[in-house]
């Protein structure tokens, strides 16, 4: 879709993040071309979730530069980054548990309402048109993740795998240019992981860029265009999944260790 010469969607340069005495991310640099799926793998504690938190703005980097589609991100709070088109899901699911499935997705349309201010108090034609538009789009997103029939259910009452999919639908409601997924397959059974893979493949087919932190190597090799292997907060390897399997450093530090 996009040639290798195209400007990268995301550029990270020399990112650092320290928590107390722990250097969670120490001097990490990488670029993400447009319409690319990057899988970030590495042992527990390698700094993968911290990296996603630095990208989405949950944490601020201690040092380093971060630019997304030509905008410098480092100083921006999380909600401003979301408006630029960065959406995310969470490793520990953070749905609005007491709201219905539909309300969770509708909350994701926050940046897209087109209602004159006075119509918030006196609902006029523009208000109702906006409501119809958002409900239609929410219905399509819920159909995409297979939760349309559960629209009225409280999010907290969904099965674990369904909650993971609902988080993706909620993130997609923001119409992201880059979707960050923090261990989307964690805790899922085989069928649920397959349901997830089908959706991620569809999103990839639409050209949505994604950064995926994941332990499930089968999912990674089937979805990812690029792999970033992290080790103690640093880059151990960056390249294609096929090249990763041949890389001596990766085999020694991670894949080999897992097989042993």
């Amino acid at each position: 879709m996009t040639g290798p010469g195209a400007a990268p969607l995301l550029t990270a340069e020399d990112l650092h993040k320290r928590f107390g005495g722990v250097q969670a991310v120490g001097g990490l640099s990488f670029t993400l071309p447009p319409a690319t799926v990057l899988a970030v793998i590495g042992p527990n504690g390698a700094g993968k979730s911290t990296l996603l938190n630095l990208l989405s703005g949950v944490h601020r980097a201690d040092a380093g530069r971060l630019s997304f589609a030509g905008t410098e991100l480092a100083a921006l709070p999380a909600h401003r980054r979301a408006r630029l088109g960065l959406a995310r899901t969470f490793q520990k699911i953070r749905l609005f548990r007491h709201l219905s499935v539909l309300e969770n997705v509708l909350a994701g349309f926050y940046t897209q309402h087109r209602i004159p201010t006075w119509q918030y108090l006196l609902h006029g034609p523009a208000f109702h048109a906006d409501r119809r538009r958002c409900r239609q789009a929410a219905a399509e997103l819920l159909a995409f993740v297979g939760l349309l029939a559960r629209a009225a259910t409280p999010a907290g009452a969904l099965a674990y795998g369904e909650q993971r999919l609902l988080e993706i639908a909620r993130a997609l409601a923001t119409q992201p240019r880059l979707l960050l997924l923090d261990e989307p397959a964690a805790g899922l059974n085989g069928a649920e992981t397959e349901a997830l893979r089908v959706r991620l493949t569809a999103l990839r087919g639409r050209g949505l860029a994604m950064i995926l932190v994941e332990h499930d190597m089968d999912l990674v090799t089937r979805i990812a265009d690029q792999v970033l292997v992290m080790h103690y907060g640093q880059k151990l390897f960056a390249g294609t999944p096929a090249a990763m399997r041949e890389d001596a450093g990766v085999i020694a530090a991670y894949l080999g260790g897992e097989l042993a």
Partner: protein
Amino acid sequence: MSDVPSPVAAASLPAAECRPGWPGRAGAAATLGIVAILPLVLRDSYGRGLLIAGALNVIQALGLDLILGFAGQLDLGAAAFYGIGAYVSTLLVMLAGVGFWPALALGTLAAGVMGGVLALLTVRLRGHYLAIASLGFAVITYQVLLNWISLTQGPLGLYGITPPAGFTDPVRLFYLIAACAVLVFAALRALLASPVGATLAALREDEISAASLGIDCRRWKAFAFAVGSAVAGLAGGLYPGFAGTLVPDAFAPADSFGVLAMVIVGGIGTLRGPVLGAVVLTLAPELLRGIGDARMIVYGLALTLVVLFMPGGLDGAWRMAAARLRRNQAG
């Protein structure tokens, strides 16, 4: 979206979101009818005073529930904003010669601005910490009213305050305040049925998640505090004309807990709840007058029992009873 199975109709979604505590047309008409008739039934000045106090409490409880129930911010400063509305509007009339209506609007605005400022100053605080900070604000406000004697006359208070022209008759004053309560209710209902309702719910449920959707939590906390406090200020501006006098003790920090009790007993996070709670808790101590000194004990016991056995408050209990009735009729 090409890979969506078959054309998806929004019609397959649950019909209009049916929110708890949202009254239907019949309920609204019946409530308005009762409000219209009440002052004709209660003809003595004691009864009419009770009606006005009840209507003021309804407005205050609605304002607090926006902050507490809908935005999830533990605000214990309600009495301060009620007092700011009362003193600002009254002093504007008495000292600056401003007319009642513009003074009422400015008192409401002042309370709203102070609410927004308090929210921005305490933006990093949540839960118990926010509760203590807002209670502290109520203590400071009370001390200012008490000790800025050149402006407020301190504990001696301001005397001879009259209701606005045309509303000196208590029945008309009640209709005025009740109309304000209905307007506040309608405005909050429209606002919360708009995307603002979902935004505040997201803020209440999970701030990190909300921010990941583009929601500026600071801004919406300030919004909820400003609007909720402005509503309290509106009630405050309507109060002095009814009381005739204005003393700081009418806005003691502990009074915040009275409003809090109305919201919780009625049903937090609903619109019907605070109305029910305000009416019941205004009437209860008066109805218990017959038992003398024991009445506050009974009142306190009743509060405890409601919180223990009706987690959704009176509104929640009402809805459960209605659902059971429907099931029985169907079955």
